[in-house]
């Protein structure tokens, strides 16, 4: 059992900014109807292309301005959080599930199964995943379900490789050998003895992948093969805003800021979790997991 002051000690090093951003994201996604000042798909041509409030011609009615159809940008960003988060969570869960299953199999059984799976991993890693995803969605048709499926089958590889690597080292432990001697079934060994030892790395990876999946979705939507309008997705807002870049910069700027902040949040929290849960894989930001925000001691 961990004493409460130890838990607080660990939380002390937490990336407050990262957690705050993710908290804001989750709140926006859950309570979009309550928070957003306007309906995200209500058009009002008389209010089209209003700048943000601090610029001449803008007003506090539309804090971040409006788009070419007079829709409120801030409200669309708040509702866009819902799409990004829901899609992100389901896609991460799907690819994590596939990847973990394949990684456990590959690492535990080894031999021929392992070499076949590793070749499949090689193949997938050598292909430009954006083109594959675009081609698949072009073929299957762009719907939320298809996007999740495509992201799931193009990004399981990362989980597969990490889990396999972990299993390879975990299975050499005595407790696994003893479980085998004691006559535990393979399923039991994998689920009760090996999986719990891999969970930490999985949590870290899933956090970092959430950011990547959100970028992936917005890239697909940006290229017109993701979520379809009028659904307020950050990628679609960027793609629309691109045409008005020369005289209405706010259309493309703010959704991008939203994406960047969320991904920054997942990166900060992911790096922190890695230091906390998985001391073997140290972060790229060594010498203090969150050296950005900590005062000089």
């Amino acid at each position: 059992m961990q004493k409460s002051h130890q838990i607080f000690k660990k939380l002390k090093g937490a990336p407050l900014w990262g957690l705050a951003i993710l908290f804001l994201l989750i709140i926006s996604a859950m309570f979009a109807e309550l928070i957003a000042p306007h309906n995200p798909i209500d058009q009002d041509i008389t209010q089209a292309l209003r700048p943000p409030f601090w610029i001449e011609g803008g007003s506090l009615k539309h804090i971040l301005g409006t788009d070419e159809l007079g829709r409120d940008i801030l409200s669309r960003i708040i509702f866009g959080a819902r799409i990004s988060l829901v899609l992100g969570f389901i896609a991460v869960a799907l690819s994590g599930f596939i990847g973990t299953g394949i990684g456990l199999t590959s690492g535990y059984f080894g031999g021929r199964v392992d070499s076949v799976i590793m070749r499949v991993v090689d193949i997938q890693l050598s292909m430009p995943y954006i083109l594959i995803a675009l081609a698949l969605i072009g073929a299957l048709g762009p719907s939320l379900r298809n996007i999740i499926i495509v992201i799931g089958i193009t990004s399981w590889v990362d989980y597969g490789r990490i889990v396999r690597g972990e299993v390879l080292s975990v299975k050499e432990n005595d407790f696994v050998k003893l479980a085998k001697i004691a006559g535990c079934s393979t399923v039991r060994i994998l689920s009760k003895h090996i999986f719990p030892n891999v969970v930490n790395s999985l949590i870290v990876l899933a956090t970092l992948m959430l950011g990547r999946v959100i970028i992936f979705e917005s890239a697909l939507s940006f290229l017109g093969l993701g979520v379809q309008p009028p659904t307020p997705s950050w990628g679609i807002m960027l793609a629309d805003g691109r045409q008005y870049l020369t005289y209405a910069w706010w259309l493309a700027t703010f959704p991008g800021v939203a994406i960047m902040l969320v991904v920054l949040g997942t990166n900060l929290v992911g790096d922190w979790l890695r230091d906390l849960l998985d001391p073997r894989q140290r972060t790229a930001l060594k010498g203090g997991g969150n050296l950005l925000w900590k005062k000089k001691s």
Partner: protein
Amino acid sequence: MQRYLLKRLFHSVITILGITLIVFIITHLTGDPVNLLIHPEASQAERELFRKELGLDQPLYIQYFEFLKNAVQGDFGQSFRHQTPAFSLIMGALPATLELTIAAMLISIFTGVPVGIISSIKPRSYYDRFGMAFALLGQSMPVFWAGLMLILLFAVKLGMLPSHGRGGIEHIILPACTLGLFSTAAIARFTRSSMLDVLDSEYIKTARIKGLSEYKVVLKHALKNASIPVITMTSLQFGRMLSGAVITETIFSWPGVGRIAVLGIYSRDYPVVQAAVFVASVLFVAINLIVDILYAYLDPRIKYK
């Protein structure tokens, strides 16, 4: 050593075979290719005849072997849109993509590595904090948004650089910076952590005790040993860049493989998409193979299983 090289080569061939299989499957997911090729009012008999001509009445595995035989010879069929061979269309666009990727690679190496080194010399200094904050932001930015913001600043507001197309050196600056942004950030962070590891080691302390200048310690002794993981990581970034090029080329109307492939997907021009995926993947496999072989010669400590 020789066995290792042969095995590596064998793996590469298997990988390329797998790639052709996936490329082949993608076209068959789109439904009946005949619908894409024939005029819409064709009669049933015409369709059957056409199907036979294309070999689409054969079992799938025979179709795949046909496809493989042609693919190896660089024949992916005619582009539906351009009425020219898809493969030569892609090969014609390849120099533009390579130019962009190499420019982006150079930018990220020549900014990422110095930023990483300077950060590692004085960890937790203001410079380090600033550099790493910038790197973290760079890794969190979506490529297409970074591209739009660069266009907004340098092409729209300042009017300094062209926002699209390929031409003189001024045309490549914005797309190359966009494409290189993520890798610059990744290389800077990785160089820093790799240097910190090395600077902590006994032989660096010995070198310092010997009274070598800081300049010599850092740039000669530490950098040399920190560079091997950095080189591995940089070669992996290349694959990422080939994917990133798809989006960068689309934003900047850069006439490369990625842009042609995206336009091909929009117009369901599948021979072009197949050729593009194939060429990009083979390029990536080849680069990885070359890097691995170079290692085998350069670093005799690597064990070959």
